């Protein structure tokens, strides 16, 4: 197993508040890796660091061995890390298909070459971008709603649309921030299947999720955060039995200092 994403001693402080404290973990190529933890444990902060949205106060993130800690989000995406958002962030004025095409944008000839080289009139590239976008929508199961506006989709379908948009950028690592939020059990089962199929395409997945059934069913490895620290890291069976984890979730009276 090779390590695709290495998170190395990452800390992040916000005006006296410690959101992440010396967090380290490794995401192995081709696995589904889950990050869990109580609210306020720092999961979303960690995601923002990994996707380049937030600069850590200290520590490093490496992708396939390359330190990319200081890269801007668009460079991180171009490198092969795509994400969705916990609060769905779609372009409301663009059609479903166009939203996915935006995800594809970073893989197309742009810059002066794309423009001056008559990239605007490059029908083949346009057609191909549309075809890829359609294929991704089909893949996540909302292929019939291409021309709608995102606002006309249910929240669940909007989440699927965000996943399609992320996939359109041909990522090697997909970051999913609470993909199951607001889903009913049937929809969660479907999502579990989808996440498995994404992995089968050779895409490594790092997800933050509260939904334990989904995490236990899908994840190969789980990192548990509590109050900004890693309190457990291992396969699901091992994490499930971990005293610290149970304490952090249930708030045992004699829980060690890591708990809240």
């Amino acid at each position, binding site marked *: 197993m090779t390590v695709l994403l290495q998170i190395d001693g990452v800390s992040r402080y916000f005006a006296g508040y410690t959101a992440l404290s010396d967090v380290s973990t490794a995401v192995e190529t081709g696995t589904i890796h889950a990050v869990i933890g109580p609210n306020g444990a720092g999961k979303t902060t960690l995601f923002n660091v990994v*996707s380049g*949205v937030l600069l850590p106060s200290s520590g490093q993130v490496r992708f396939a061995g390359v330190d990319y800690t200081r890269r*801007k*989000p*668009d460079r991180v*995406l*171009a490198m092969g890390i795509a*994400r969705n958002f916990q609060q769905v*962030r779609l*372009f*409301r*004025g*663009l*059609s479903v298909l*166009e*939203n996915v*095409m*935006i*995800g*594809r*944008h*970073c893989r*197309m000839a*742009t*810059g002066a070459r794309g*423009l001056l080289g008559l*990239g*605007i009139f490059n029908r083949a*590239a*346009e057609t191909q*971008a549309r075809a890829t976008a359609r294929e991704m929508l089909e893949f996540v199961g909302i292929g019939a709603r291409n021309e709608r*506006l995102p606002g006309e989709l249910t929240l669940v379908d909007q989440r699927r649309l965000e996943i399609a*948009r992320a996939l359109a*950028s041909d990522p090697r690592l997909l970051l999913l921030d609470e993909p199951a939020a607001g889903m009913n059990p049937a929809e969660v089962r479907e999502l579990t299947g989808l996440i498995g199929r994404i992995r089968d395409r050779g895409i490594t997945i790092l997800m933050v999720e509260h939904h334990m059934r989904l995490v236990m069913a899908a994840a190969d490895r789980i990192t548990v955060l509590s109050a900004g620290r890693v309190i457990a890291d291992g396969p699901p069976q091992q994490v499930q039995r971990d005293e610290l984890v149970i304490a952090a979730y249930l708030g045992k009276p004699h829980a060690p200092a890591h708990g809240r």
Partner: protein
Amino acid sequence: MLLQQLVNGLMLGSTYALVAIGYSLIFGVLRLLHLAHGEVFMVGAFAGLELVVWWHAGPIAALVGGLVGSALIGMLLEFVAFRPIRRRGNSHLAPIVSTIGAGLVIQEVMTKIFGSEQTAFPVHFSQTEYHLAGLTLDATQLFILAISFVAMLALHLFVTRTRYGIAMRATSENLRIAAVLGVNIDQVVLLTFALASGLGGLAGVLVGLNFNAISPYMGVEMGIKGMAVMLIGGLGSIYGAMAGGLILGIAEVLSVAYLSSSLRDGFAFGLMILILLLRPRGLFATGVAVER
């Protein structure tokens, strides 16, 4: 007679629309006002004029010259008057000052080169008049109408059909998310300036063809009208700018025909105030994004 006035108003309004679209495109993407856009329009008129004077270019070549000349000036302005300010965080006021300054510099330079007299295109491209169902249209007017509407249609196709247009709409809806999703913002902004300014340059040549009043100060009034048209159309909405331009043009022409020519601007701006009282966010506002 009324129909004739409406056609005249449509022609005048289509040039307002072209200028206002520029304001809308730039405001849509950057949420910033570009107060030198009137000067960009003026540079386009001069670029077209010079092509005709020195190389005896035809009307189409003059248009292309105006478009290219203005697009270049617009991109230059993005580099000197917008980009350095954006890099230092988002101040909404600084670009207002920097673009007013840039506009004055352009006016002064053009006055130095061409003098402050009003000039006109040396040749009338066509004196042919067409009579159609009681309407009198000369070839220049038809040309202006046709070019304006073709330009607006081309813009519509660009923003809806091409990936650059889609990226531009995404950026104008939410610049930060577009950046996170890998859209090259600097490139989109530069493209926006080129497009907005190019359309302004087209308008400059068209106005020059019809009114024979090319001067380094012609951009001042057009700049104010273009901005007002953007307001009545709805901030950042290119279709609002199109509709608003046509409404303003028709209102002006009707007020000259049926009221008094001295009331022209007063009537036009009064109508605008009325529209804004009834629809404070403009005719086409649904949020601040460029609409589909």
